[in-house]
């Protein structure tokens, strides 16, 4: 009670801030920061401890083996690593242009009144629980993909060899599409915010030089927001890599490497969620190993994006200056 009385009024708080030595604040902030570092370290160490039995019984090569067959103590993760990358790639190939396009439209083209409505609609998509996306994908989207999208893609792009086999519904393509719907709000909302804060002087300056609206967007706005856009991309990738329940419902969960975008496949998260409840011993440990691999992939993607941001933001700044 007494602390509240002393801290609540503005003047009193300012007084106490002045009264306390700087070191206390520094210490407090350091403690808060340390909690996060500690959490990450604890998390990493416990994952490694749990996964260790798998590494000690199977060596390191098991990660890149092709066969997952717990009945014969085979725990190869390759099909799931490939599946994780494939579904994420499909999702991003769709989400990046559509998300960026929507964001540009919302930030610069759409009239104000419509802007709020559209933004709310996209943000609502972000609030839908992932299991609902999964069920919707399985019950509603799967028949549409099987009856219309897969036959269409097969007839148009069949020559690529990516669409061999029967039209099934659940599989890589459907999982990629569901992930696209799920990462779109992230991609769109963050892109819109970073595009909106590009300094108006630059936009107006370009227009004054006679640039068309399209040239302004392409040469000034997008390069200016490059760092933030890569951030949006990283977050969207992270969500696509790690999505679990929705993917498990629509991907068909085959333990084999898919030969076609229409084939059932599996991802690291779907493997974990499907098998965790009933697994013991080496299998359980291998699932923790799968989690560790997923973590490494996530960190690698994040790091690559950071490097890209660093190199392109310099180049971007230079190009803006030249333009």
């Amino acid at each position, binding site marked *: 009670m007494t602390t509240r009385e002393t801290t609540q009024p503005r003047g009193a708080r300012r007084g106490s801030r002045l009264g306390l030595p700087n070191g206390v604040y520094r210490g407090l902030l350091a403690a808060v920061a340390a909690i996060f570092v500690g959490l990450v370290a604890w998390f990493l160490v416990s994952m490694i401890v749990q996964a260790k039995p798998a590494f000690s019984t199977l060596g390191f090569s098991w990660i890149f083996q092709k066969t997952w067959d717990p009945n014969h103590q085979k725990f190869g993760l390759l099909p799931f690593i490939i599946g994780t990358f494939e579904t994420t790639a499909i999702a991003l190939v769709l989400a990046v242009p559509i998300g960026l396009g929507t964001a540009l439209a919302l930030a610069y083209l759409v009239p104000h009144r419509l802007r709020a409505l559209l933004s709310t609609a996209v943000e609502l998509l972000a609030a839908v629980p992932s299991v609902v996306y999964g069920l919707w994908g399985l019950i509603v989207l799967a028949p549409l993909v099987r009856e219309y999208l897969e036959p269409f893609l097969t007839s148009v792009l069949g020559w690529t060899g990516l669409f061999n086999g029967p039209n099934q519904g659940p599989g890589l393509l459907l999982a990629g599409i569901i992930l696209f719907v799920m990462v779109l709000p992230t991609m769109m909302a963050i892109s819109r915010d970073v595009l909106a804060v590009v300094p108006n002087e630059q936009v107006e300056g370009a227009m004054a030089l006679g640039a068309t609206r399209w040239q302004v967007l392409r040469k000034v706005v997008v390069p200016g927001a490059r760092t933030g856009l890569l951030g949006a991309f990283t977050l969207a990738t992270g969500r696509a890599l790690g999505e679990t329940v929705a993917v498990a419902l629509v991907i068909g969960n085959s333990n*084999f490497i898919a030969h076609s975008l229409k084939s059932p496949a599996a991802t690291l998260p779907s493997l974990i969620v*499907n098998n965790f409840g009933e697994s013991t011993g080496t299998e359980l440990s291998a699932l923790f190993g799968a989690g560790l691999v997923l973590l490494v992939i996530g960190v690698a993607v994040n790091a690559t994006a950071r490097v890209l941001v660093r190199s392109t933001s310099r180049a971007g700044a230079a190009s803006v200056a030249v333009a």
Partner: protein
Amino acid sequence: MTPQADSGPRRRTRRLLAVGLAATAALLAACSSSSAPATTTVPPGGVKAPGNSSYLTADLNAPAGALTAAGSTFVQPFFSVAFHDYTAKNQGLQVNYSGVGSGNGITDFEQGTVNFAASDVPMSSSDLAKVPAASGPVVQIPDILGGVSISYNLPGVSTRVKLDAATLAGIFDGTIKTWNASQITALNPGVTLPSNAIVPEVRADSSGTTYIFSDYLAKAAGSAWTLGTSKTITWPSSAVATPKNSGVAGSIQSTPYSIGYVELAYAIQNHFTYAAVKNAAGNYVIPSLATVGADADQRTNVSPTDFSIVNEPGATSYPISGYSWAILLQKQTSATTGAGVVKVLDWTTSTGGGQDLAAALSYVKLPPAVQNQNRTTLLTVTGPGGQVLLTKS
């Protein structure tokens, strides 16, 4: 094996539905078999009848407290209703059951964090080896009976499809690829089957349902089934796998020309179309509470090491059936909670107690001989001082 947890009004309609369906299915099953009705090895009521009520009365005098239990999701809807009913009748003893999956339930039991566990398949010798030696022997008893339906989505075919083990093995290992394959048409004379590709629908998660189904194929199809008996099967790449019964069910509903194995309670409650399956006597039998019960009646001397009841003889036996198991320590660490454990389990696995709630939830009652055997087993469970915990009133 996960029939969804249910709520009040839905449960009521479901109960009516289940009773109606059970009656219809029993009739159908009776019609489909030309030979004599099933012979049960134990007369109705069983040997247990005389002392039954005195045990059941004493079961409801368990000491107050709270028990924790965990495991199978298949048995969870039954356990939640049965334990709720038990607590209503025996004020003061609560049972908190978490449906965390059989594997997790067994792990919890090995670590001693639960008073008892439930699993779709009894603990294996390697599981048992992980129980600390100081804990003493483990006791496992059947707690309820269930069946596995072969549900399908076959547009334009209104006649019920008949299948046998060899054909099912071919469909699920990917060697029989279309509905009008000669193996299927041979079993269904007079039915026009489409030439569409079959989509096998299977479980993505480790499951007791998969175990019972693969056990049936291994025993009834013999060498034609090469994928083994397990809770997880490495299915051919043509199969579509979805987690839980609800996932497989949803996938079958949204995929024409698909076929999958779904826990019977779930298939009954969702009005699925399921195949008549050829049993050991050569009859095509529709799964129902009655026909699954008939299969179990054929072999009641099950034990944790010899628990399979698939493909039993008997004219009306539905061959893809299996028990769910409750797991407890033979020497309880506390006389008070120990008495609670044995009394709750005795009540739950007895006619006159929890078994009377089974049919309404589309589960099948344990045969009287199995109930009897359970009581004999529970009478060997003792407290820390060696005293028998199950009592008569």
